[in-house]
């Protein structure tokens, strides 16, 4: 538990990282360093996208599974990973 906490802290402190969100199985952000409304918005929107991506990957090969979904946008990069029903989201601006 503490290790994961430390890792998340390090990620948050890393250069260019705008924010991290940990979303639980019900879609509620349980840990974030962004403001609540933004976190809820990200959580809600990315949840569906991740499920769809995961469904796509597994439809092609059921023995495969999605590890990370990376969305590179003009302004920054959003990284989403589904794991054990939870969702981990990191937003980073790599060009800084």
């Amino acid at each position, binding site marked *: *538990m503490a*290790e994961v906490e430390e*890792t998340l802290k390090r990620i948050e402190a890393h250069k260019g990282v705008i924010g991290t969100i*940990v979303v639980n199985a019900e879609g509620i952000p349980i*840990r974030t360093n962004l403001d609540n409304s933004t976190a809820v918005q990200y959580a809600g929107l990315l949840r569906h996208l991740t499920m769809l991506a995961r469904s796509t990957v597994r439809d092609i090969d059921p023995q495969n599974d999605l590890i*990370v979904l990376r969305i590179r946008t003009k302004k920054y990069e959003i990284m989403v990973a*589904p794991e054990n029903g939870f969702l*981990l989201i*990191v937003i980073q601006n790599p060009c800084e």
Partner: protein
Amino acid sequence: MRKGSNVQKVPKPTKASSKKKDEEEGVDTGDGWDEWSHGKALTKPADQLELTEAELKEEITRILTANNPHAPQNIVRYSFKERSYKPTSVVDQMAVHFVLEGSLLHQDSDEARRLRAKEEDGGEVEEAGEEDRPDSVASKTDKKEPKLTNQFNFSERASQTLNNPLRERSCQTEPPPRSIFSATANQWEIYDVYVEELQKQEKNKEKQKAIPSKKDNEKSKKKMMLMETQGDDFTKVGKASKIFERMVNQNTFDDIAQDFKYFEDASDEFRDQEGTLLPLWKFQYDKAKRLSVTALCWNNKYQDLFAVGMGSYDFSKQGRGMLVFYSLKNSAFPEYIYPTNSGVLCLHIHEQHSHLIAVGFYDGCVAVYNLKEEGLEPVYKSTAKTGKHTDPVWQVRLENKTEMMGPHRMCLVPATPLLHNCFVSICTIKCKFNGMLDASCPQLVVQRLTFHKQIDYLFLVGTEEGKIHKCSKTYSSQFLETYNAHSMAVDAVKWNPFHPKVFISCSSDWTVKIWDHTINTPMFTFDLNAAVGDVSWSPYSSTVFAAVTTDGTVHVFDLNINKYEAICQQSVVAKKKTKLTHIEFNPIYPIIIVGDDRGYVTSLKLSPNLRKKPKAKKGQELPKGPEVEIAKMEKLLSLLREPEQNAV
């Protein structure tokens, strides 16, 4: 004739009143206007016959008869006999004054009998009614006469009652709560369900087999349940967070990652056989800032993982140490951190079981760490009981054995002239000391040791005095050969990975020497203008090696290209005072890691010129494999040997 007259006096007593009465009557009923004045005055009707007094006094006789005054006196009837009207003499004189129909019935009449019957029944009912109602009802029904329906006078009578107004009443319960459920049945969901089923079945099979250990299973299950019900646990995203850290680092150091993978210095073509080192990631750990890197080792299985031993070469000040593992994928933070009590001086990762690391400490301890286990303690640590050394351990090596389950040897080189053969069993990680090779020379301070790759029993020992001894495990008391290698302590001795006869040594006397172990004098000697900290052969070529010096430069040599000079000499540290302590080549990637005495580890990429392979002649296939390397080396050596022989 009677006239209607208002009689105000006392009513007439009888009909036998005389005419007087009439007169009286008349007189009585005389004057109307005198009514008031004379109460008893006679009133006269207006139309009264006025008679004279004489006439008034006349007596008229009235006879009272029983005749009906109203009866007609002269009824004439036609008689058919005489054919004329004849007056009837007798007329009925009955006058009916009052008729009242009575309700009396003759007692023998039918109706009377009926009534009597009814009366009797009614009477009986009334008498016995008070005693027993139901009985009476029964009796009533028994004695009841059959209903007589009158065929002639039967009349149907019907009446319609008021219809009650209809009222509708209804009741509605609350609808059951509804929830919308939707699901998809994709191929992978079906697959998941099947996999779960399989697992369940397997578990059942196992349960059936392992019945005595049921209790343990239950206990472990309970523990598992407790763990699962801890709710919003971050540990569930543990793996993902690790991956993310690496991704974030990759994004930040994107250019370094790209260089590492793809960059090949194009200017090498113009550089006339010299090469460069491109600095890549720099690894440092906050808590290890004051320690210097004392050992480096790449992991064979996961070639992006390497181990760094931290300690101190300052023998007057010895503090704590650290064993840190880094991965190239994450340069910001180590993967594994093991703090130690005393400074680490050497380490070695097992070539096959790459999760086992042997570490030698300054205080003479030897420890074996298992990366797969959680916890910061080594799985084995030598203590005073198990034969801990009294002097710092300079070299540790974990060897393979052909049998996997058999004990593996770990050889330790302490500063004192002892060589321990330690058997480490992989299953139990118990360390037994088995056989002590005693180097007989008492003043020998062993510092470096290296085992031959193919010839198992042969090994080289470098000493603090500068000599190198060739020894064999079988001959425990004598050296096979001694080389007067250096004037100062030998810092590193390494066999060539390809050529079986060649080894290299370096020392603080600024030199690096290459030897053929059959010949007592070095084949090559290089002077590097500074104390050489470490030297290492490259894994891809038998003629390439690199050395690091205390002035912060890395020297890369390729004997195939240039036998006298380095083809690359590059300073890799920012501050000039940092000394480079160790260098290691990565087994597959063209990078080297260099450790310095500030606790930094720098990774550098070798430019193409430093990695040259022999050019193929036209038409020939490019020969590959270690034989080529051996041949290359052999060629070099033969060149050297001939002139020597010639010289001799």
